[in-house]
């Protein structure tokens, strides 16, 4: 009945006392903005990670072997893993050892201290022309079976090394790795920002050469690919069975699929977001108390108005709904401001993070979710109504005679 008038009155009193309105709404504004920023960041982070994982392929299976140690003869060799792929072609489509070699990279008098060196097999480079890490070749070729088989000293380098060591002309040149000369047979496309220590500062070797460089007998890390995303968990079971057969205990190895990792990351992120949102929600609570406080003052200030309205026939519920609507409107406006502020801040943060991480425009984007916005708005209105109820009830119960006499 008098919703529109109550609504207009609320807007009017907000406009006439702007400073007071702002202070009343501040708690709600901050709370809602914080919730929006946090959910945007979380959402953006999730999207970003999912994209990273997707790039790697959802059917990637990582195997880490810790081994029994102490000279135990229970061990698996790359051949055992290759045999597994041959035995179960319907589940496993490829495998490669992934050997991290701690060696120095030099070219002439230049030393590249932060360059990562990985030994891989030919399956690391799949039929789609991509490595399992999602990189593509710019020039040359990748590591081949023959290189692995014959311990060839060949390597594929990232765009950073190509630029810094060879002036973008590395193909066919020689690089010293761990004191041995390696011929550059391929150059990768830029995938990061070509900075030192970035994803572009790396070298791929045949894993046999890498094992020799690091004086290791067997690889402790393997990358399998399952035939599809759906067969990933079955494939994981096959690999685990094989490893258990050798080690007789699941303590000595770890097998994880990309999908699992993705889920693990997601749930971790969700927990983190939940905690942060809860903290932000405290601000909403404080905001609600702020609204209640101002509404109580407003009821006292407008005692006479309440008396007039009652003398003209307003019932308790008319007065109550007027003040509840007013409180709800105040917090809804505060909530809307908070939403806008939150979205702006999320955008600013997106740009800041893009600069800090150097990921460019298609990197991390903090996107506010529609759900998040709807919930934030709903909660802010609910808080207004909830905390407005007590003062409204006080107003509704005023005695009209006393209220009319109040100055």
């Amino acid at each position, binding site marked *: 009945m008098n919703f529109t008038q109550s609504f207009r009155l609320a807007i009017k009193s907000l406009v006439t006392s702007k400073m007071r309105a702002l202070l009343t709404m501040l708690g709600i504004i901050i709370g809602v903005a914080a919730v929006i920023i946090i959910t945007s960041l979380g959402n953006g982070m999730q999207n970003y990670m999912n994209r990273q994982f997707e790039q790697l392929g959802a059917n990637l299976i990582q195997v880490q072997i810790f081994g029994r140690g102490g000279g135990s003869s229970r061990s698996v060799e790359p051949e055992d893993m290759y045999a597994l792929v041959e035995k179960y072609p319907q589940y496993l489509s490829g495998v490669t050892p992934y050997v991290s070699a701690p060696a120095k990279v030099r070219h002439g008098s230049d030393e590249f201290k932060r360059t990562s060196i990985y030994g891989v097999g030919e399956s690391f480079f799949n039929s789609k022309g991509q490595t399992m890490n999602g990189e593509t070749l710019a020039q040359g070729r990748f590591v081949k079976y023959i290189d692995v088989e014959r311990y060839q000293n060949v390597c594929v380098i990232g765009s950073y090394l190509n630029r810094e060591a060879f002036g973008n002309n590395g193909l066919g040149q020689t690089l010293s790795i761990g004191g041995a000369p390696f011929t550059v047979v391929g150059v990768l496309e830029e995938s990061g920002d070509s900075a030192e220590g970035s994803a572009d500062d790396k070298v791929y070797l045949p894993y046999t050469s890498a094992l020799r460089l690091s004086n290791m007998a067997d690889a402790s890390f393997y990358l399998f690919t399952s035939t599809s995303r759906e067969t990933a968990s079955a494939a994981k079971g096959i690999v685990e069975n094989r490893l258990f057969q050798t080690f007789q205990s699941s303590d000595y190895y770890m097998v994880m699929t990309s999908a699992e990792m993705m889920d693990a990351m997601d749930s971790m992120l969700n927990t983190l977001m939940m905690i942060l949102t809860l903290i932000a929600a405290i601000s909403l609570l404080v905001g609600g108390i702020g609204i209640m406080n101002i509404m109580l003052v407003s009821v006292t200030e407008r005692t006479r108005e309440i008396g*007039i309205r009652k003398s003209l*026939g307003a019932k308790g519920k008319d007065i109550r709904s007027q003040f509840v609507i007013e409180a709800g409107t105040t917090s809804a406006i505060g909530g809307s401001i908070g939403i806008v502020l939150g979205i702006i801040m999320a955008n600013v943060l997106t740009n800041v993070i893009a600069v800090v991480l150097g990921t460019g425009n298609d990197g991390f984007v903090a996107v506010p979710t529609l759900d998040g916005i709807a919930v934030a708005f709903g909660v802010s209105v609910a808080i207004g109504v909830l905390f407005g109820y007590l003062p409204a009830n006080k107003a509704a119960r005023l005695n009209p*005679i006393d209220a009319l006499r109040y100055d």
Partner: protein
Amino acid sequence: MEHLIELKDVYKIYQMGEETVHALDGVTLTIDQGEFVAIVGSSGSGKSTAMNIIGCLDVPTSGSYHLGGIDVSTMEDDQQAEIRNKMLGFIFQQYNLIPKLNVLENVELPLLYAGLSAGERKERALRSLERVGLRDKWRNLPSQLSGGQQQRVSIARALAGEPSVILADEPTGALDSRTGREVLSFLKKLHREGDTVVLITHDNSIAVKADRIVRLQDGRIVYDGDSSDPQAVVQPHDDESEIEDDTFGGEAVGV
């Protein structure tokens, strides 16, 4: 014939600390449709209490009050609000307009609580403003009008709901004598047009404008009759009244 207002043996007793105060001490009064009655009395006489009870803002401690044939003396707050909305139009000394609402919105208020549609509210409120000659001021805020104009707006508001009784509580108290006279002659005009007007005042010179005077003292009716009777304006001298007035001083402020 049924009386419009019928108070029968009405008592209003307040407990003020140790003391019991009889604000109304057995008042029996009837007012008929179309009458113009002034309820007069000095401060502490019980006239404000009488106005509160007649205006359905308060209920008597004992006795009965029928308004338009309905017993309103035992009603709940919300039922009283409905009666006030439908049957009573208030005119206050302080105009009691809501400063944030414009003239039209102020006049619309009783219609709003009566549940009328926006279109009907506006139409009736404008018609009511027309009657007091302020139709062209409907957009203004009360603060942009003179005192006399504000009081006319409050009269328009009282008329908008087409009440059975117009209850004017010291309507000229805050006005200079010229605008006060204007407002009074306006009330007379309403009376001539058939409205029932009850005027509450302490001022004899205003009370005589009504047709009938009811004089209250110490919560009792001491005179009830024609305003042209010289008896009507005689202030009864009672030696005790001064002391009583002091004791009753609290009554006017209310409990």
